[in-house]
């Protein structure tokens, strides 16, 4: 198994930390992982993205130009990364902030209203965990136990009390993933 994934959105949406929690979940599941961020000034307010690769083999390039999956959280990222999903691959997006829906017909499209679900759960900061849950429904690359362990490893101890809320968000995302059909 090798999953090559890009998560792309605005800085502040928790893109990098979502990638880190997923990567740590992979480590806890015994996989090889790389987490490669865009870094620099664009992290603040501009677009942010991270490439995460999970594999049961040694990982070659951490930098890739074709993805098995793209998680798209803003329009700029849709414009940039929709075309970089491999045929037969997966694109998951949050429709908030998307002005043009994806048009590819050769990939699997999913959406998750993470913004609203996080608000309903009472904490907009767990938006990224809702999206992670939705992703894990579409691509079950790690199980929920590994995610829990990944959260324990990646969150500082003082935030461990928030792990149940995070897991609830993952669960909600998992349940509320919607499949999309392009016309």
């Amino acid at each position: 198994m090798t999953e090559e994934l890009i998560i792309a959105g605005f800085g502040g949406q928790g893109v990098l930390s979502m990638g880190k929690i997923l990567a740590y979940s992979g480590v806890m599941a015994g996989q090889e992982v790389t987490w490669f961020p865009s870094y620099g000034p664009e992290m603040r307010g501009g677009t942010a993205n991270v490439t995460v690769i999970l594999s049961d083999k040694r990982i070659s390039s951490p930098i890739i130009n074709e993805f098995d999956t793209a998680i798209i959280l803003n329009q700029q990222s849709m414009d940039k990364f929709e075309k970089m999903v491999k045929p037969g691959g997966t694109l998951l997006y949050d429709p908030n902030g998307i002005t043009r829906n994806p048009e590819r017909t050769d990939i699997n499209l999913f959406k998750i209203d993470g913004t609203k679900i996080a608000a309903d759960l009472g904490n907009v900061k767990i938006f990224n965990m809702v999206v992670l849950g939705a992703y894990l429904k579409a691509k079950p690359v790690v199980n929920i136990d590994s995610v829990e362990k990944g959260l324990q490893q990646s969150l500082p101890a003082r935030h461990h009390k928030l792990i149940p809320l995070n897991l609830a968000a993952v669960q909600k995302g998992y349940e509320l993933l919607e499949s999309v059909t392009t016309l």
Partner: protein
Amino acid sequence: MGELKLMKGNEVIAEAAIRCGCDGYFGYPITPQSEVMETLMAREPWNETGMVVLQAESEVASINMVYGAAATGKKVMTSSSSPGISLMAEGISYIAGAELPCVIVNVQRGGPGLGTIQPSQADYFQSVKGGGHGDYHLIVLAPASVQEMNDFVDLGFQLAFKYRNPSMILADGAIGQMMEKVQLSDFKPRMTAEEIDAKYGSWATNGKKPNRERNIATSLEMDSAKMEANNKRFQEKYAKMQAEDVLYETIRCDDAEYILVAFGVSSRICQKAVDIAREKGMKVGLLRPITLFPFPKQIIGEMAKRVKGFMTVEMNAGQMIEDVQLSVGCAGCAVPVKYFGRMGGIIPTPSEVVQALEQKLIGG
């Protein structure tokens, strides 16, 4: 073994330093490697192992603090990125001239000048040729994974002390900024004053003892004949490195007709390019130099006798290609040596590499 963690390359440098019994780190912030000192300061190793961490007023000061501490037999290091390494060039030359061990980490960014903060390998020449003034070389280790960022700190110190010569870990912004699974090393104790006296008493300037002459750490010698003798001794040291401490990795080279040569993050990209090329029916392998100085000349010379050509893949305008050409030429071979690369902080993609292979080497 130590714990299994998911960490950034830069963070791992800091953790590996603490664990390998490093006595001191002196640094100055610069993107994309500031996490090294940030991690050290957050870890407060002075409470745990007694390691000193100091934010200096400049890279010039950092490297000279390293000089001062290294000359007392302590295991010390610094880290920076390209423009900062240029500032350190003077001090590095003095350290090499005074024959002192230390580790210098360069998390390269694109240049010249202030350049960019994105990853680059444009400091290859600067690193393998010495970088400062005078005839000297650094031991240059090129990590290609976060695990190697961990492993090469200890290895860098071992080689530095073996040769009494500075080691450089030549990383880049990609290896520094990315996170991977890493098996941390076990803790090694710092050396005691008695151990330093016993092992390095012949040169360490840690206070003149009654049982020895005073030690002087210097690169100065006014007598040209003595200075030439010093230089000859340095050259013998570099020849010994070439004979004993070359490191490289080969991937799918056994039946390869074409060899990609790449180091650091470029070698990771090439690993994928090899897989893609093989799927397309091209017999391609990868040679990854791990020590850039001493350079794996011999294996390239041996390969040159049986392969149809080489292509270096570098994040610069073509620097390592010169060492590959020399290695091929020294073996009396004339197979083509091509280059493909990107500059200015752009990382080539595996498919670009395969395309270049087809256009420059295999198809051409």
